[in-house]
């Protein structure tokens, strides 16, 4: 293990190496920065690479480590999704609208990880304003899947997932509104965790749909996710949706036995849309859990098939409201020579937003407009209540739900861009957790034709510690999460 090259180590492995002085933080940062920069032409996983700042903060970390002052994360490099505000660094959200926005402050997630001594390598590419499931809506061009560069990495946190999969960054922050952490994690063969709504502060995380958005992580392993989640979770007075409950020591319970664990199989997750070869990988993973002492129980969430239409009312409605702030006046893109104020608003927004963002703003505007509010928005909020109740009932019969993350492995670039509904249906298994505010994970569970398949875990509110434990125990029995694409080995 000690002989493994820097880039093949997990975050936990890097932390150990730093502590034992096998290498310095500067050496680690340089190794990843070199890989990252040479991967850019193929993967386009980054919008900004912050080499100089990374090497400077790695040098600071090395001094602290040498003085015996470092914490568990000191000197560890990572990438931030470009939706998180980073002081003095371009924060584009994948949009032309913010292609000139240098944030005057740090998001709480960024600040906490900085204070913990981590080293930011750069800002990861993403679907524009996190609206997309393939990373093809980015103003900065699509991200490509390191397992097959002709395929998408998933989205919207496609840059974060591709970066970790190619080991050009050992970990990355990400966000999830309808599956944007879990789906790209599945398609890229890495570990993703979307915590409970309110668990991680959203201060400085550019808003898309505020009743659904949650920040989280993409890592190699559940153990790494536990390390980082402990640092970013917890109450933040600057986020009015942040929940004030204690943060457990996620790493402490990773190894707990799974004997007696009740795993719920949601009947609706194993529908006809699920690729049969993906289903086979999921069933194999379930067999591993049975070997670990878990019991499988079938549960039903009858309203779950309505989660995608529910989401495509609620999320666009909230997006149309949140994105009203981009007006060409205070920050962001402004059109040339506006004729009057109305023209300034209309053209700045028309030019600054890409096609999918405009589609969602207009969908949201329509469902909130006079005469349609009750029929669409209130109706969707009622169905959302039914979906949440389905989950609550299911958790009466089991401890965690396990199933597929995505109906298929990664699809080719361009395959789903012409029909928005086809694209939206990618998130059919992930959206439910967002609607109900539940924590979700995706962990690698095998391959179909050389492309990774993700296993999704969904737990009750604030059950992150248990979910990480469930994921970690699987990862001690399997090595799917340690597989790396040949081109990046």
């Amino acid at each position: 293990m000690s002989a493994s090259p820097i880039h093949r180590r997990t975050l936990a492995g890097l932390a150990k190496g730093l502590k034992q002085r096998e290498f310095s933080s500067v050496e680690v940062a340089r190794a990843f920065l070199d890989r990252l920069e040479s991967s850019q032409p193929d993967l386009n996983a980054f919008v900004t690479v912050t080499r100089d700042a990374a090497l400077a903060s790695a040098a600071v970390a090395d001094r602290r480590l040498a003085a015996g002052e470092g914490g568990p994360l000191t000197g560890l490099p990572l990438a931030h999704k470009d939706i998180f505000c980073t002081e003095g660094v371009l924060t584009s959200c994948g949009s032309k609208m913010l292609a000139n926005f240098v944030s005057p402050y740090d998001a709480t997630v960024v600040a906490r990880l900085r204070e913990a001594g981590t080293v930011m390598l750069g800002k990861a590419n993403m679907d524009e304003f996190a609206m997309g499931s393939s990373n093809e809506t980015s103003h900065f061009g699509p991200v490509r899947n390191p397992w097959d560069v002709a395929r998408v990495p998933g989205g919207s946190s496609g840059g974060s997932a591709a970066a970790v999969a190619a080991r050009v960054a050992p970990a990355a922050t990400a966000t999830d509104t309808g599956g944007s952490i879990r789906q790209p994690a599945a398609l890229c063969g890495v570990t993703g965790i979307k915590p409970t709504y309110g668990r991680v502060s959203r201060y400085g995380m550019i808003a898309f749909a505020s009743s659904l958005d949650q920040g989280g992580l993409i890592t190699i392993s559940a153990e790494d996710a536990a390390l980082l989640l402990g640092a970013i979770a917890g109450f933040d007075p600057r986020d009015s949706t942040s929940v004030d409950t204690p943060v457990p020591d996620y790493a402490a319970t990773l190894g707990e036995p799974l004997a007696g664990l009740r795993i719920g199989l949601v009947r609706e997750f194993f529908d006809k849309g699920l690729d049969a070869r993906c289903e086979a990988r999921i069933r194999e993973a379930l067999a591993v859990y049975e070997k670990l002492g878990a019991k499988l129980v079938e549960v039903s969430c009858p309203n779950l098939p309505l989660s995608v239409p529910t989401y495509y009312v609620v999320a666009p409605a909230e997006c149309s409201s949140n994105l009203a702030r981009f007006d060409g006046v205070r920050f962001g893109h402004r059109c040339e020579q506006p004729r009057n104020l109305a023209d300034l608003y209309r053209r700045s927004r028309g030019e600054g937003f890409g096609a999918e963002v405009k589609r969602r703003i207009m969908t949201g505007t329509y469902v909130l407009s006079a005469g349609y509010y009750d029929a669409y928005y209130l109706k969707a909020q009622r169905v959302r209540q039914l979906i949440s109740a389905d989950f609550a009932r299911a958790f009466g019969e089991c401890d965690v739900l396990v199933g597929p993350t995505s109906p298929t492995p990664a699809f080719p670039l361009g395959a789903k861009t012409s029909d928005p509904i086809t694209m939206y249906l990618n998130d059919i298994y992930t959206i439910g957790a967002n609607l109900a505010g539940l924590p979700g994970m995706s962990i690698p569970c095998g391959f179909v034709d050389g492309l990774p398949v993700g296993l999704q875990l969904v737990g009750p509110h604030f059950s992150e510690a248990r979910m990480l434990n469930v994921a970690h125990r699987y990862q001690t029995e399997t090595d799917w999460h340690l597989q790396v694409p040949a081109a990046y080995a």
Partner: protein
Amino acid sequence: MSLSRSDIEKIAHLARLELTENELPVYVDSLSRIIDFVGELDRAQTAGIEPMAHPLPGLAQRLRADEVLETDRHELFQRNAPQVEAGLYLVPKVIE
């Protein structure tokens, strides 16, 4: 349900989005399909069900004490503004 070109123009106006001639037909088509798709929700029986606005049961929006916590950093914030003069954001003349 099918949306017309004038429906899209009206929505774009409400959303303050300038659309090009090429974009209009694309949105007529795709928004019509999306509205059809979300029309599936009609199938759900929701009589007597409370609309769900917050994903965590029993939690409501928290309010903070009315205290000044922020300092004036307008110069820093205005560095991102397209046009500023004397600490003010400039826009085209509103009143002739």
